[in-house]
């Protein structure tokens, strides 16, 4: 794992900040929601308080009185002022004949079929005398119309006979009475008849000035009649404008046309007076609620039982006046929103009667989540922007730092590697000026390398110094031997004398070899540069080697007829001497050594190929170091590993360098000296 990757991971750890931000945004959101709910509760309580005791506002009619208290009711509750009176708390309990119309989402077709009514056929209230005489009734409100669906149980349904004389008893079949209180509080009766499946005919009973009764068609009430189920169904529509508080239905069940009816229902069968009422909001309630309405809220008033009476709805109106949330915020939302979470809040408050004892209704305030979600989004966006930016900055900084560190480290590595392989004096080691730990490492390295350099330098000069120091005792030995030659020596002693002389000669040869490198360095220091023909010099030298090494063949290949080089021909020849020495030492007797001169665009290359063992691995760089050798065996000539070091010195004097490689066929070695022009 590289340093860069490690620091990148470290930088990525700062992503915990946006994560924490998201967490915090959620916390904040629920706090906000709690706050909103609290304030919504306050709103709902305020509105509910304003509605306290306003039964007239809540309900369409004065509370109906039980039939026994009918006269009292008539005196106490004139339609305009009755609601101002204190009301009996018991009135708000739903009476047995009260109808609570549901709110219909669509207007049913007035065809007598129940299919377009919500809910099952079994829904609704059932009224009747016995098992054979009963009906169920469902009521609904839609667009200021009251819809009534009657499901009458009748084993013998009988239609009216057609005809205009509706008051002729003989034509009577099954009939349905609607009785209601009109807006002025007067009892109205409407007769619904049908002479066959299909539309119904509605007639209102009109009582004349002198009490005489007549029947008029009532076109505002429409409906349909259809046999079905275990009897027939009647569907009717009455405009709410016709209706006051009380409402009831009476069924005249006749088994034969014109027979005596069995009457039952929610109207008194004697005078068709209403016994129950329609629990409906007063027309003013909605308007009253609207004044409390704010964008994004919905106010609903329900009966204590929870059935909606009226509502004012502005939920769809977005409280957000600006454009939608920005893209970034929408993206961020994904991290925070919990799926399936409700985006609205609600608060309920009971509406009490004047004495604050009885609940007459309930107010429900609904508010969309827009407001706090927007608040949350704004905070979230800011926080995420900030933390993500921080993360980005940190990661970038870490990456930059890592890259910089890696650059410094690799510079250090390169410098130390080249310092080791080239073994040259390191004059400017990088990073040693740095004040940090890397600078310490670099300084240690530089110190180490300079120590190494001093040591190498010492080793290099050691041979020369040693040669010098040994020269004096050797001179003593030699001059003593020379003097001994002049003395009378017995033949037996002569042999020892000769051996001593041979030994001293060899010692002398060793001294010469040991001092070779320092002498070459010295002559390089004083060498003159001149322009000469390298081809002629090499050809001449190779010719000399043919004489000197009779047991090797020498090939000279030159790319050009003449190649001018600026430098010291003496040194070049001396370098070639060392190369040939080396080649001869490592090649078998009788083999051919090739000296090749190649010209490149910017350099001249001298190559010496010799057959023989390949180079040992991993020694390319060290081959040209001082006092280093890979000779396996020993021969009579002294070797100090200076030959190729001298080659390197002379190549360096000419601005070039020496390299060693195995021959392509692996059958030997090639040493190449590259001299720039």
């Amino acid at each position: 794992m590289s340093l860069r990757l490690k620091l990148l991971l470290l930088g990525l750890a700062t992503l915990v900040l946006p994560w924490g931000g998201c967490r915090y945004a959620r916390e904040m959101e629920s706090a906000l929601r709690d706050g909103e709910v609290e304030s919504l509760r306050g709103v709902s309580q305020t509105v509910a308080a304003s509605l306290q005791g306003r039964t007239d506002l809540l309900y369409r009619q004065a509370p109906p009185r039980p039939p026994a208290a009918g006269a009292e009711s008539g005196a106490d509750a004139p339609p305009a002022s009755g609601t101002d009176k204190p009301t009996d708390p018991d009135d708000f309990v739903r009476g047995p004949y009260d109808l609570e119309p549901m709110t219909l989402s669509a207007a049913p077709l007035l065809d007598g079929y129940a299919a377009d009514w919500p809910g099952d056929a079994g829904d609704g209230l059932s009224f009747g005398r016995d098992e054979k005489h009963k009906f169920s009734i469902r009521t609904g409100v839609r667009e200021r119309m009251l819809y009534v669906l009657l499901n009458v149980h009748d084993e013998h349904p009988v239609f009216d006979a057609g005809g205009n004389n509706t008051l002729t008893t003989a034509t009577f079949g099954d009939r349905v009475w609607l009785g209601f209180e009109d807006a002025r509080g007067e009892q109205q009766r409407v007769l619904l008849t049908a002479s066959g499946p299909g539309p119904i005919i509605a007639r209102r009973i009109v009582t004349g000035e002198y009490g005489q009764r007549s029947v008029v068609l009532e076109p505002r009430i429409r409906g349909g009649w259809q046999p079905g189920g275990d009897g027939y169904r009647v569907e009717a529509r009455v405009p709410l404008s016709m209706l006051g508080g009380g409402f009831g239905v009476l069924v005249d069940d006749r088994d034969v046309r014109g027979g005596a009816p069995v009457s039952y229902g929610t109207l008194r069968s004697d005078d068709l007076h209403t016994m129950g009422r329609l629990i409906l909001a007063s027309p003013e309630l909605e308007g009253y609620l609207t004044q409390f309405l704010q964008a994004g809220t919905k106010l609903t008033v329900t009966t204590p039982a929870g059935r909606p009476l009226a509502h004012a709805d502005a939920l769809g109106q977005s409280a957000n006046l600006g454009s939608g949330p920005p893209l970034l915020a929408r993206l961020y939302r994904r991290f925070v929103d919990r799926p399936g979470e409700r985006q609205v809040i609600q608060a309920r408050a009971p509406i009490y009667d004047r004495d604050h004892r009885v609940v007459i209704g309930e107010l429900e305030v609904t508010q969309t989540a827009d407001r706090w979600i927007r608040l949350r989004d704004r905070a979230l966006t800011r926080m995420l922007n900030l933390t993500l930016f921080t993360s980005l900055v940190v990661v970038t900084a870490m990456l930059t730092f890592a890259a910089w560190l890696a650059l410094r480290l690799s510079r250090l590595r390169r410098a130390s590697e080249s310092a080791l392989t080239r073994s040259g004096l390191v004059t400017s080691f990088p990073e040693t000026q740095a004040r940090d730990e890397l600078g310490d490492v670099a300084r240690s390295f530089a110190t180490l390398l300079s120590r190494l350099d001093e040591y190498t330098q010492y080793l290099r000069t050691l041979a020369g110094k040693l040669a010098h120091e040994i020269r004096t005792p050797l001179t003593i030995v030699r001059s003593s031997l020379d003097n001994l030659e002049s003395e009378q020596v017995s033949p037996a002693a002569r042999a020892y004398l000769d051996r001593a002389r041979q030994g001293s000669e060899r010692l002398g040869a060793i001294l010469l070899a040991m001092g070779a490198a320092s002498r070459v360095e010295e002559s390089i220091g004083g060498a003159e540069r001149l322009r000469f023909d390298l081809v002629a010099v090499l050809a001449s030298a190779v010719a000399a080697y043919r004489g000197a090494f009779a047991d090797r063949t020498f090939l000279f290949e030159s790319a050009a007829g003449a190649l001018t080089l600026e430098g010291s021909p003496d040194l070049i020849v001396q370098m070639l001497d060392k190369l040939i020495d080396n080649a001869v030492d490592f090649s078998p007797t009788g083999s051919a050594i090739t000296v090749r001169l190649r010209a490149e665009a910017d350099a001249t290359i001298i190559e010496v190929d010799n057959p023989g063992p390949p180079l040992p691995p991993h020694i390319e760089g060290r081959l040209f170091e001082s006092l280093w050798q890979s000779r396996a065996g020993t021969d009579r000539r002294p070797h100090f590993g200076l030959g190729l070091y001298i080659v390197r010195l002379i190549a360096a004097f000419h601005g070039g360098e020496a390299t060693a490689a195995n021959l392509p066929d692996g059958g030997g070695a090639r040493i190449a000296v590259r001299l720039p022009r």
Partner: protein
Amino acid sequence: MKRLVAIVEDEPAIRENYAAAFAREGYAVRTFANRLEAMAAFAVRLPELAVIDISLQDEPEGGFELCRQLRALSQELPIIFLTARDSELDAVSGLRLGADDFLTKDLSLPHLIARVNALFRRVEALRRPNVPTDVLRRGPLTLDTERMQAQWDGHVVLLSLTEFWIVHALARHPGHVRNRQQLMDAASVVLDDNTITSQVKRIRRKFQAIDANFDALQTVYGMGYRWVE
């Protein structure tokens, strides 16, 4: 009367060995271990030849100083540096101070004696009236083997003994290549290749000081040198 040879050498064993060799050859020998000792004696009586080591006891360059003082006392006195130091710089310094030869201690005693004899011959020849007896002429080059003196175009070229013998070996057979070993033998010295190379360079420079176009001493790379007329 025996010729007096002074040996200034701080290493007693070498000093005594040299002294013994010179005595055997019939020279009178006086030996000194340091410069002050030697100068005190030379002030009383000059030797006829001095063999001097460069480093003398506590004076690393004492031999050079001694040579300078000795040359101040006498212009003709043959002086030979015999030292363990073989650097080019030392050789040049020594010869510039007026030494007649600069030898390393690798030299064998018989060779040293031969050189001393040759130097005495030269001194004698120089003292005799100017009648060249053994002269080698090669174009502008004149080699007086008796006085061991070289002339180019009539100008004297001041060569050390070793240098003279190298030129002599090459000029005797012009056009023939002499390798380094042959030159060492001719000059009775044991030197390595680099030293021969610098000797030849020094010779060339001396001739070029007289004639800038001097080109008679040529290098045959890988083989050696030859004299071209």
